[in-house]
């Protein structure tokens, strides 16, 4: 520090010295400059004075020259003498002016006017004389000269000039004196300045020298420090460090020997030495306070020991040995702790500067030593860590190798297992399929077997039955007709009584026999026609039958039998029974006879009665009562079956074919009645034949066609209602075209009926909506004419239901109504519309149209394509017997065609000469007055996603032209032609729905549909838009977020609700919802997730990702709408 201070002072002194020197030189410079200036000015003045004098003289001499010229001329008259004069005149003015200028600011200037006047006068005189000499004569000139006018002027002039000269001379002397004085002054000041300057330079030199010495000291110290730093630089271990430090210090400070001790934990050991002999006995280590070194460590001070005694330590080389005389011991300190001590020995007294260096070094060395120790420790630790790390690495490498081996093995194993598994599964699958096939085959075989067995059995049955029947019939005809024939002939002979030997009574008997025989013959004929009965070919003749006649006939027939069996036989006609009934007499009597003969047959004792009773409901009963053997309850059913009697044994005892009762019952049915039986075994039976009093004539049908119950209407959802008005429904099933008229106004219905029949339709009439639907369902008519105002509900709903029933939706419906529902009806799929009152011609046209449509069965396809070759080939491709094609090439034509006609399908090229297909479709969707068939877009260019989406609004099918496009076009056209009228263009459906269910909750609300599937987008849009909601579409999560961001920027365009699909490209729904929920503004935005996944966890995932609610696909429209209503913010 002292050093620096002195350095600083020296610097200041040096600077002050320099400043003084500079100031001095400036001052002396100024003085010298001023003196020089004075000298210069004075000398200039002297020169000026001299010039004035010269100028005055020159002026005078010029005048004199002029005068000389004048004189010469005057005397000689020769022009040549005038030359000096002329020269003088030309110079004179300049010279006067020169003098005047020089005299500026001079005291002599006052003389100038006088001088000028004199010059002018003299010049006048000269001029005069010359002109006189020229014009007149010498004498005249001489006279003027002689007048002395010129001389006087000249003299006066000379006097003035002399005056000037004198004054100027005086002035010059004065100036010269001043000049001298100034010179003296300058000299003196110069000498003085030189002396002072030399002094100053000496002083400065001294100062510089001192500063230089300080610098050198400082530099030495600094160099020492820098050297020391260099010696300690880098990451050295403590031994190297000690070596370098002691070596450097010894060499730099000129020591001959040195030793360096360092240590931690209060013990210092010798780590390095310098210049010490190898055999020197030296302290190896010490503790603080131990010896001089220990003391130094304790005191933390540098100290010098001088005059070391001989033998303290010997320092030597090969040339000799000597004792160091002086010694310095110094500590190295770091943060107040001694970390090292070093000792240096010198032959000469070490310089103070060396000691200073050593003190200065204490701290850096201390710190470095400590750092070195720390570093050593750190190094050890690092090495340890490194070793451990390497060990780990080795282990992990080994592990990885074995792992990889294992993995490889397990992968191979797994793969082969998986392959095996798959093969096995495949095998199993094949097995299962084979088994299934076998089973199916077996089942089919079994079925076949069973069926064929059944068939065989049935065939056998049939054969047996028919054999029985034919045997029986053959027997009967043979067995009965043969004896009957002879009986009849004999009876006839008896009745004729040719011999006259018979009593009247006997003749009567014979007649009766003949009558009975004839009856029998009739009966046999009937029996032989049993197949006829069963086939329903038995004829029934309704005629008037007197009951009395019946009674008589029965008596005639049975009285003999009764007499023979000694049984009383009574016939009672109860009161109230009409005299006659309308029925088939023969069949009635046949039944009665059958029943009565049975009664007589099975009755041994008692009575046989025939009671004829009347019923209120227009029926008459014939009760045949006997007191015979009777029939048990179980048997009462089977006795009516053909060839059966109550008891297998009865046959033998009573005889008979067992056919009687079944024929009777069939006959009773034919007569519109039936036979019932009340019987108690052992007591008797009552067979009751009930027939209507009036038999309605109808074509006999098979017995099964007179059902006890109505046939089941299997497969027909609606029962067929009975007709309200007479119509052709009974013929409806017999083929031909049928029309169903649904109209509650009977008069109008009748009109329509008549008109329909005129056009060759069979006509069914329904007077209510419900009946209309039921009849349409049952009869599936060719066409329907429908009224809107029906008593139960609207005709529009009838139309709707017809169009939503697969059985009826293909039926063309023509609407006739009192009010205008044209748009709605057409949208629902009606083919035509008329408003009441309808003119007959209109109706006729409508029916003609229907008729034509039905006759036609042709499908019409509209093709819009501008390339004629392409158009022709398309027409060839699509046209057929059942498909009529109409080819057009411009949008204008197309619009016109759709306005005037209807088509089943339309194939549209997108690029047309007068506008694009896009705009055509848009126009069509807006035009209410033209039909809009399903559209197939057929285009040669690829479409962007946006374009495709736009087209999808109007067209369900888009085909790009290519190798396979004709096939696909044919596929798609076929699809549309098979779709029925009910599949309305979506736009009309929307139009209708728009008017119907505008849902307040959804009106003008903005819903973002995030969905990538075009079909779903279309479906959702067509659900939401008709309800007044505005729908925005995003095709993936990223677009959804962008759309939300965009909507947020525009006021009033905020999205109210989001429908979010989950499976989407780029960003899926779950991620999108998480992203949306990250933004505070959308924390409460309702998001309904649409998921195809059905598991509770999947739905949980949706909720966790931020969905407000979810709905599983496939979407239930009502459920979706209610969810939207629930979550739509109010």
């Amino acid at each position, binding site marked *: 520090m002292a050093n620096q201070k002195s350095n600083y002072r020296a610097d200041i002194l040096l600077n002050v010295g320099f400043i003084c020197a500079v100031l001095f030189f400036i001052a002396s410079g100024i003085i010298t400059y001023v003196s020089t200036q004075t000298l210069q000015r004075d000398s200039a003045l002297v020169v000026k004075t001299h010039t004035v004098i010269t100028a005055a003289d020159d002026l005078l001499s010029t005048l004199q020259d002029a005068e000389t010229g004048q004189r010469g001329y005057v005397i000689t008259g020769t022009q040549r003498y005038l030359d000096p004069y002329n020269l003088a005149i030309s110079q004179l003015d300049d010279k006067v002016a020169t003098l005047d200028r020089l005299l500026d600011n001079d005291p002599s200037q006052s003389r100038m006017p006088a001088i000028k006047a004199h010059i002018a006068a003299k010049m006048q005189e000269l001029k005069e004389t010359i002109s006189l000499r020229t014009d007149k004569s010498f004498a005249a000139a001489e006279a003027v000269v002689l007048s002395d006018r010129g001389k006087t002027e000249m003299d006066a002039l000379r006097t003035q000039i002399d005056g000037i000269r004198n004054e100027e001379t005086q002035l010059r002397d004065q100036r010269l004196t001043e000049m001298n004085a100034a010179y003296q002054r300058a000299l003196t000041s110069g000498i003085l300045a030189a002396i002072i300057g030399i002094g100053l330079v000496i002083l400065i030199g001294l100062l510089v020298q001192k500063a230089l010495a300080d610098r050198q000291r400082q530099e030495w110290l600094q160099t020492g420090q820098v050297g020391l730093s260099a010696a300690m630089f880098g990451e050295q271990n403590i031994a190297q460090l000690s070596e370098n430090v002691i070596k450097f210090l010894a060499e730099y400070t000129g020591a001959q020997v040195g030793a360096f001790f360092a240590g931690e934990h209060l013990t210092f050991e010798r780590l390095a030495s310098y210049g010490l002999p190898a055999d020197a006995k030296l302290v190896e280590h010490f503790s603080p306070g131990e010896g001089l070194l220990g003391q130094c460590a304790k005191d933390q001070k540098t100290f010098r020991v001088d005059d070391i005694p001989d033998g303290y330590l010997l320092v030597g080389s090969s040339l000799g040995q000597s004792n160091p005389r002086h010694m310095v011991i110094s500590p190295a300190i770091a943060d107040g702790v001694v970390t090292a001590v070093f000792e240096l020995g010198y032959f000469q007294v070490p310089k103070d500067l060396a000691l200073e260096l050593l003190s200065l070094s204490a701290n850096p060395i201390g710190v470095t030593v400590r750092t070195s120790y720390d570093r050593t420790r750190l190094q050890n630790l690092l090495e340890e860590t490194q070793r451990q790390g390497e060990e780990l690495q080795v282990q992990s490498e080994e592990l990885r190798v074995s792992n990889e081996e294992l993995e490889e093995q397990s*992968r191979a194993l797994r*793969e082969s*297992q*998986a*392959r095996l*598994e*798959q093969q*096995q*599964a*495949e095998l*199993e*699958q*094949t097995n*299962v*399929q084979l088994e*299934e*096939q076998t089973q*199916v085959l077996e089942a089919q075989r079994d079925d076949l077997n069973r069926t064929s067995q059944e068939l065989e059995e049935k065939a056998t049955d049939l054969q047996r039955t028919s054999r029985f029947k034919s045997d029986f019939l053959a027997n009967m005809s043979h067995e009965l007709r043969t004896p009957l024939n002879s009986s009849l002939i004999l009876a006839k002979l008896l009745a004729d009584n040719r011999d006259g030997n018979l009593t009247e009574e006997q003749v009567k008997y014979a007649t009766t026999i003949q009558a009975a025989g004839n009856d029998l013959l009739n009966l046999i004929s009937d029996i032989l026609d049993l197949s006829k009965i069963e086939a329903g070919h038995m004829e029934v003749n309704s005629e008037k039958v007197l009951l009395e006649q019946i009674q008589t006939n029965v008596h005639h027939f049975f009285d003999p039998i009764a007499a023979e069996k000694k049984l009383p036989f009574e016939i009672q006609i109860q009161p109230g029974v009409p005299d006659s009934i309308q029925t088939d007499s023969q069949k009635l009597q046949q039944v009665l006879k059958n029943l009565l003969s049975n009664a007589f047959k099975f009755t041994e004792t008692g009575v046989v009665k025939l009671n004829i009773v009347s019923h209120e409901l227009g029926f008459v009963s014939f009760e045949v009562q006997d007191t015979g053997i009777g029939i048990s309850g179980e048997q009462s059913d089977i006795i009516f079956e053909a060839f059966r009697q109550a008891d297998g044994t009865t046959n033998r005892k009573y005889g008979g074919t067992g056919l009687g009762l079944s024929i009777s019952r069939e006959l009773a049915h034919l007569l519109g009645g039936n036979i019932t039986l009340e019987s108690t075994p052992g007591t008797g039976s009552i067979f009751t034949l009930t027939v209507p009093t009036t038999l309605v004539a109808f074509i006999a049908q098979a017995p099964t066609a007179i059902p006890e119950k109505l046939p089941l209407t299997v497969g027909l959802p609606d029962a067929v209602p009975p007709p309200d008005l007479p119509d052709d429904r009974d013929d409806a099933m017999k083929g031909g075209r049928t029309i169903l008229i649904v109209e509650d106004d009977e008069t109008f219905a009748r009109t329509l009926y008549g008109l329909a029949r005129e056009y060759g339709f069979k006509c069914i009439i329904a007077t209510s909506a419900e009946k209309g639907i039921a009849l349409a369902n049952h009869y599936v008519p060719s066409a329907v004419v429908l009224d809107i105002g029906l008593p139960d509900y609207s005709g529009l709903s009838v139309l709707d239901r017809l169009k939503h029933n697969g059985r009826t939706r293909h039926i063309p419906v023509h609407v006739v109504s009192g009010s205008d529902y044209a748009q709605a009806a057409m949208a629902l799929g009606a083919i035509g519309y008329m408003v009441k009152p309808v003119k007959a011609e209109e109706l006729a046209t409508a029916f003609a149209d229907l008729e034509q449509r039905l006759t036609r069965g042709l499908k019409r396809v509209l093709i819009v394509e501008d390339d004629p070759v392409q158009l022709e080939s398309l027409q060839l491709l699509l046209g057929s017997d059942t498909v009529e094609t109409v080819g057009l090439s411009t949008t204008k034509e197309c619009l016109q065609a759709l306005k005037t006609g209807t088509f089943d399908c339309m194939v549209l090229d997108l690029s047309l000469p007068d506008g694009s297909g896009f705009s055509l479709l848009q126009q069509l969707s807006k035009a209410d007055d033209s039909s809009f068939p399903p559209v197939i877009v057929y285009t040669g260019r*690829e*479409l962007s*996603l946006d*374009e*495709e989406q736009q087209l999808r609004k109007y067209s369900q*099918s*888009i*085909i*790009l*032209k*290519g*190798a*396979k496009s004709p*096939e*696909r076009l044919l*596929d*798609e056209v*076929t*699809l549309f032609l*098979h*779709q029925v009228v009910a599949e309305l263009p979506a736009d009309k459906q929307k139009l209708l729905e728009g008017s119907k269910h505008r849902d307040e909750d959804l009106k003008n609300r903005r819903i973002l549909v995030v969905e*990538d*599937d*075009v*079909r*779903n987008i279309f479906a959702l849009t067509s659900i939401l838009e008709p309800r007044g909601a505005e729908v925005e579409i995003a095709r993936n999560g990223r677009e959804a977020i962008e759309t939300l961001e965009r909507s947020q920027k525009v006021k009033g365009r905020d999205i109210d609700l989001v429908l979010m*699909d*989950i*499976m*989407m*490209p780029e960003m*899926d729904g779950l991620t999108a919802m998480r992203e949306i929920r990250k933004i505070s503004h959308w924390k409460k935005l309702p998001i309904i997730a649409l998921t*195809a*996944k*059905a*598991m*509770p*966890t*999947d739905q949980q995932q949706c909720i966790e990702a931020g969905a407000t609610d979810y709905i*599983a*696909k*496939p979407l239930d429209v009502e459920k979706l709408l209610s969810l939207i209503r629930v979550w739509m913010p109010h």
Partner: protein
Amino acid sequence: MSIKTEDIEIQLLLEAIYLKYNYDFRKYARASIKRRLTRAKESLRCSSFSMLQDRILHDPAVFPPLLSYLTVQVSEMFRDPEYFKAIREQVIPYLKTFPSLKVWVAGCSHGEEVYSLAILFREEGLEKRTLYYGTDINYQALEIAEKGIYPLDQIALFTENHRRSGGKSSLSDYYTAGYGSAVFDKSLRERIVFSNHSLVSDAVFAEVHLISCRNVLIYFDRDVQDRAVGLFEEALAYRGFLGLGSKETLRHSKYVNSLEDFVKEEKIYRKRDVA
């Protein structure tokens, strides 16, 4: 008797898996599922299926390894090259007439088939208008599929398959090899959606034009097979295509009449037209 007890245990185990993890293996082909469960049981060191059930119910960490045993993850790119050849030569010309296309690989496992189709479609110039769905129930497999990294030693086979399928370019154009693996071009991945979807329980998610579901139905029993085919039928666009594995057939399916043979040898079916 022991066989019967085991079957009960398996039934219960499958029920437990369904209730706890919502993976429905109950309707899988029983023989195969039994074999796979037996292997899982052994490798997870369980003495019985009941013990496996116990572990499954109480330690969710056991489920992932079990799942990988239950789902057979094996495939290769362009497996059965003839199948891909048939798609390339006979199906693609039809697909070219659609303005935009969707392809669904049901049971995509590690995604080899999805990438195969994506490569095929790129070669046929349909890539830009096609979106691919790869679905599977094993999320671990889906993770692998999303990465599109396959062991290098399989590439030789893939390359051969690709060549035999009528590949128009070199397979090496689509992958980068290094560190023993081959990474497939990320640009192929751009139009692929990998998603977890179960044919047993989930519904249709999109209208698609081509479905490839190969060697998946063999693991199902009849009911689930019918359900899956029903989903396909519903998802397919009018006249769309369905490809099945070589041993699979629709002959016994409920939907045999809604789909017709298109390439009979390769089990490619087509949705029937209305006529």
